């Protein structure tokens, strides 16, 4: 049992204060800005919900929204199953587990703005390893002009960079399964699929929700990695939400960019809230099954 005491607030107060300073205050400021037309920061005019109406009714918003959503969906469809599969491939207790985990985690250490440069040099038909291989197989290097190929490069890059995180999360959840479960399954004659479905997957659910949430958010707002690859092109095919926002900020359209930010934040909170609801429901179901 947890002890019920509101002194707990004293322990979380320092964290709450810091997060208010760097998170909550800026967020409220953004919300405030989104209702103003701003010329210089001390000269502003109330415009109400005009920016919101303008953004919601613009085709530009919905098309980048659709692209971001599709990109996130593809990222999740690739990285979550791949992450689970690789986590299952890591042996339980052997000397090279540590080495495998460290090797898998290496891509997480590259500064984010260098990842596109790395991939551009990798895809270079003259000197790149992958580009050279593809060139010798007869590929002509037209990915800058083909939307599908740009997407493939972006997805490969993102998968390379972030699947490690899913693997680390899944592997740590898998190590919490007591060996007795596997022994019992072996006695009952369960096959690999049944072990996965009834022992491993339940142990993963919580961590998977977190992984899905983190991967969804970071891919939904992909900017520093996506923009340098093809500058939102070809023909706007990789202009994601954050790229739009970046253009607004660069053009000093404070009001509209604030409204855009608020819309993104609302999407984020909505998705996160849905996930926590799903999790509470899973918890309740698990308790009912147990009792």
């Amino acid at each position, binding site marked *: 049992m*947890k*002890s*019920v*005491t*509101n002194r*707990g*607030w004293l*322990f*979380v107060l320092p*964290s*709450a204060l*810091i*997060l208010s*300073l*760097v998170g*909550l205050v*800026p*967020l409220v*400021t*953004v919300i405030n800005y989104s209702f103003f037309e701003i010329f210089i920061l001390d000269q502003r005019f109330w415009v109400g919900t005009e920016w919101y109406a303008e953004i919601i009714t613009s085709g530009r918003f919905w098309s980048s929204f659709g692209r971001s959503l599709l990109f996130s969906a593809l990222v999740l469809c690739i990285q979550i199953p791949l992450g689970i599969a*690789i986590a*299952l*491939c*890591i*042996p339980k207790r052997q000397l090279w587990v540590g080495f*495998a*985990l*460290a090797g898998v*985690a*290496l891509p997480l*250490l*590259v*500064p*984010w703005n*260098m990842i596109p*440069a790395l991939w551009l*040099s*990798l895809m270079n038909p003259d000197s790149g*390893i992958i580009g050279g291989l593809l060139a010798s197989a007869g590929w002509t290097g037209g990915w800058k002009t083909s939307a599908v190929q740009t997407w493939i490069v972006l997805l490969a890059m993102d998968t390379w960079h972030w699947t*490690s995180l899913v693997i680390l999360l899944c592997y*740590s*959840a898998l*190590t919490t399964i007591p060996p007795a479960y596997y022994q019992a399954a072996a006695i009952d004659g369960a096959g690999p699929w049944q072990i996965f479905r009834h022992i491993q997957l339940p142990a993963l659910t*919580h*961590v998977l*929700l977190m992984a899905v949430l983190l991967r969804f*958010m970071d891919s*939904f*707002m992909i900017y*520093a990695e996506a923009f340098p690859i093809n500058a939102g092109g070809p023909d706007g095919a990789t202009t994601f939400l954050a790229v739009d926002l*970046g253009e607004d*900020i660069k053009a000093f359209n404070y009001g509209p960019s604030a409204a855009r*930010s*608020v819309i*993104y*934040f609302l999407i*984020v*909170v909505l998705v*996160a809230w849905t996930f926590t609801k799903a*999790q509470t429901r899973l918890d309740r179901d698990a308790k009912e099954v147990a009792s």
Partner: protein
Amino acid sequence: MMLRRALKTFALLAFLIWSILPLTQMALLSFISTLPQPGIEVGSLTLSNYAGILGNPALASAFANSIAYVLINICITLPVAIPAAYAFSRMSFAGDRQLFFAFIALRITPPVVLTLPIFQLFSALGIVNSVFGIALAHCLFTLPVSIWILQSFVSAVPRELDETAFLDGYSRPRFIWTFLLPQIAPGIAVTAFFCFMFSWVEVVFARILTTTNGKPISMAISALFGFQTDIGLVMAVTTASMIPGALLLFAMRNHLSRGFRIGRL
């Protein structure tokens, strides 16, 4: 059975090769001269790129800046995250679940959304262009993740330990200091590593908060791109920027997976 194990090993090795392939490309390029220089032919193997890092004061100070703000970030994050993790793990208080959700919501808020107000706020506080400013801004995501990781380590410590200590007359803060900290020492190390990892590679806040001084490595690399980019030098800096992380990663390899052993949101 044997076949399945072989397949698994093969899949793991294939994934490892895929992970390391772009890094190999990077390391290879970092040893090749890519711009005409006196005495060195373009395309030949050379160490001049690495010599170029040492000869460039901007790059050397960028390394110092990155190390400084990551250390400051860890020094801010850990002391406030440990009591919070303890409270979330052991105590029930009004609004605890909501507060935990709010923390996580801030972690997943797109940083682009907050860049403008954070810049203004930090200008008002006079910490723009300073290493401290970046360290503080990065608390936005290192703090929630740290609380999340530490909470799992605190929850793994038997509750009897708390109760015995309280019976012996220890206060909560003294209990945390004398008994809990040694117990969760590996957890603190893992947390510090993840703070390092997320803070070291972040670029959005690092970019807006450093217009002239205090540039981190990532921005110093960006500054190398221009009309004639010495891609070999760029790759050498990137390779060098990964060395501290790789060393830490190697040291932490056996504790890495323990970092996320819970799933409470």
